[in-house]
C-alpha cells in the first residue's frame, strides 16, 4: 500500500523527533503492509515549521541510508505538507517547499479552525500554475461540510486526501460520517495516515474499515492509489 501523508522525517516538525523514532515508525508502517511512503513534513509558518526543502533533502538522504542499512524493504519519497498562504506559490517556484517526489502534485493543508484563505482561490492559483493540489484531510475543516463543496474542489482540479484516522473515528463522529459519505459518492482520491507518532497507527484499520463498508476495490483505490506516481 501507499501512504502519501506522513510526518516521519525527524527533527523538522511535530512528527518524529529523531531518527530512531522514524525507523520505528517506518517499521510499524511496514507491518501494516505499507511499502511506499511519502515523507511529508509540515511547512507551516504560523507554527514555526519552516524547514526548507534543501535542509529536508539532507535529512531525508540520511533517513534513506539508515532504512537501507536496516534492511527495510520500503520505498521513501520526499514531499511537504504545505500550509497554504500567499507565499506558497513563490516558494514552490523557488523550490523552498517541495512537491510530492518532484511531481506536479502538491499536498496542501488549511486551517482546521476557520476559513482564512479562500480555498477555491488557492486551488485556482495552484492549478493555474500547473500543479495538482491534494487537499489534506478536508474532513477536518469545519467550514467545509457540504458534499457540494467537495464536488466543487474536485471540479476545479484538486484531489482529496482523507486521514485513515477519520475512518476509525479518531477525529470524531462527524469526520467519520463525512468520509464515509464522501467515499460513497466517489469523492475521495487518497487515504493516508498523517502519522506523527504512535498515537494512532490506524492505516491498516482504516483500510479494513473501507474494505468492510464498501469493497476491497474501493479500499485499494484509496490506500493504494498509484496516480501519485504519474
Amino acid at each position: 500500500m501507499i501512504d502519501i501523508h506522513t510526518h516521519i522525517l525527524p527533527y523538522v516538525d511535530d512528527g518524529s523527533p529523531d531518527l530512531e523514532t522514524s525507523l520505528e515508525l517506518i517499521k510499524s508502517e511496514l507491518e501494516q503492509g505499507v511499502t511506499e511512503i511519502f515523507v511529508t513534513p509540515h511547512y507551516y509558518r504560523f507554527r514555526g515549521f519552516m524547514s526548507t526543502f534543501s535542509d529536508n533533502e539532507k535529512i531525508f538522504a540520511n533517513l534513506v541510508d539508515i532504512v537501507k542499512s536496516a534492511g527495510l524493504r520500503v520505498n521513501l519519497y520526499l514531499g511537504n505538507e504545505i500550509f497554504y498562504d500567499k507565499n506558497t506559490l513563490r516558494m514552490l517556484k523557488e523550490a523552498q517547499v517541495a512537491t510530492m517526489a518532484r511531481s506536479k502534485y502538491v499536498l496542501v493543508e488549511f486551517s482546521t479552525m476557520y476559513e482564512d484563505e479562500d480555498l477555491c482561490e488557492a486551488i485556482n492559483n495552484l492549478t493555474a500554475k500547473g500543479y495538482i493540489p491534494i487537499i489534506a484531510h478536508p474532513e477536518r475543516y469545519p467550514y467545509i461540510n457540504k458534499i457540494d463543496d467537495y464536488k466543487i474542489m474536485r471540479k476545479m482540479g484538486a484531489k482529496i486526501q482523507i486521514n485513515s484516522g477519520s475512518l476509525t473515528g479518531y477525529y470524531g463522529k462527524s469526520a467519520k460520517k463525512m468520509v464515509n459519505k464522501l467515499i460513497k459518492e466517489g469523492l475521495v482520491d487518497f487515504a493516508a495516515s498523517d502519522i506523527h507518532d504512535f498515537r494512532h497507527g490506524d492505516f491498516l484499520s482504516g483500510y479494513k474499515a473501507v474494505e468492510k463498508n464498501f469493497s476491497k476495490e474501493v479500499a485499494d483505490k484509496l490506500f493504494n492509489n498509484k496516480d501519485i506516481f504519474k
Partner: protein
Amino acid sequence: MEFFQYRNVVIETPNSPEAEAYRKLELNIRMSDLDKPLHIIQSTSATAQDGKTTIAINLAAVYAEKGKKVIILDFDLRRPKIQRAFHKSNDVGLYDFVVNDKDVHDLIIHDESGIDLLLTGQKLSYPHIVLQSNKVIEMVHQLGKEYDYVVVDTPPVLSVTDALVVSKFVDAVIFVVAYNQTKKENARIGLEQLRQNNANVIGGVLANIDVRKTQGTYGYYYYSHYDEKE
C-alpha cells in the same frame, strides 16, 4: 466556498449570436461619442452577480478580435474574479504596484487570447483609498495611452464606494442590469449615485438574456440558457 465559472463566448464561440451581441455592444460604445473616442471603459452594476465581469471580459475579447491592444484592469479589489475568467493565478498584481512600487508593466499578464490583464495580487487593506490615489490614477491614464482600450471591472455600486471612485477617472461607464434578477429599485439608486458623481454613463446593458429568442433591442427576452455542454 465560492466557485464561479466565466464563459468568454467571443473567444470560445466567435460565430454565435451570443458573441454578436457583444460586438453590437462594442459598436454602440463607439457610436455613442464619435467626437471624443472612449478608451477607458468601466463596467459596473448596482448589485452583485448582475453580469458586469462577464461583460468586461467579452468586451475586451471583441477589441482583441479586432486586433486592438486591450487590457483588463481588475479593480474589484475585494472579490477579484478576472483571474478565474482567464484561469491565471492571482499572485502578482495591483498590490505589488501599490505596495512594492513595482513597475506595472512587469505585473501585466499577457493572456494567449491577446488580452492583457492586471490582476489584483494580494489583498489590499483600503481599496477605495488605493483607487483614489494619484499613483493609481496616473497609472491608469498611462495605460490609456499605451493601449487602444482599457476595460475596468469594478465592484457593484451599492456594496462599496469603489465603483464611484473609479468612475471619476475613466472615459465611460456602462451600467449593467440583469434580466429578471436585478431589483428595479436597486438599479435606480445605483445609477443615481453614479450620475450624482458625474460619471459619464454612456448607456445601460441588459444581461442574461437569450439572444436567440429576441427580436431586436426592444423585443422581449427570455433567460439565456447558455450551457457548459454546448
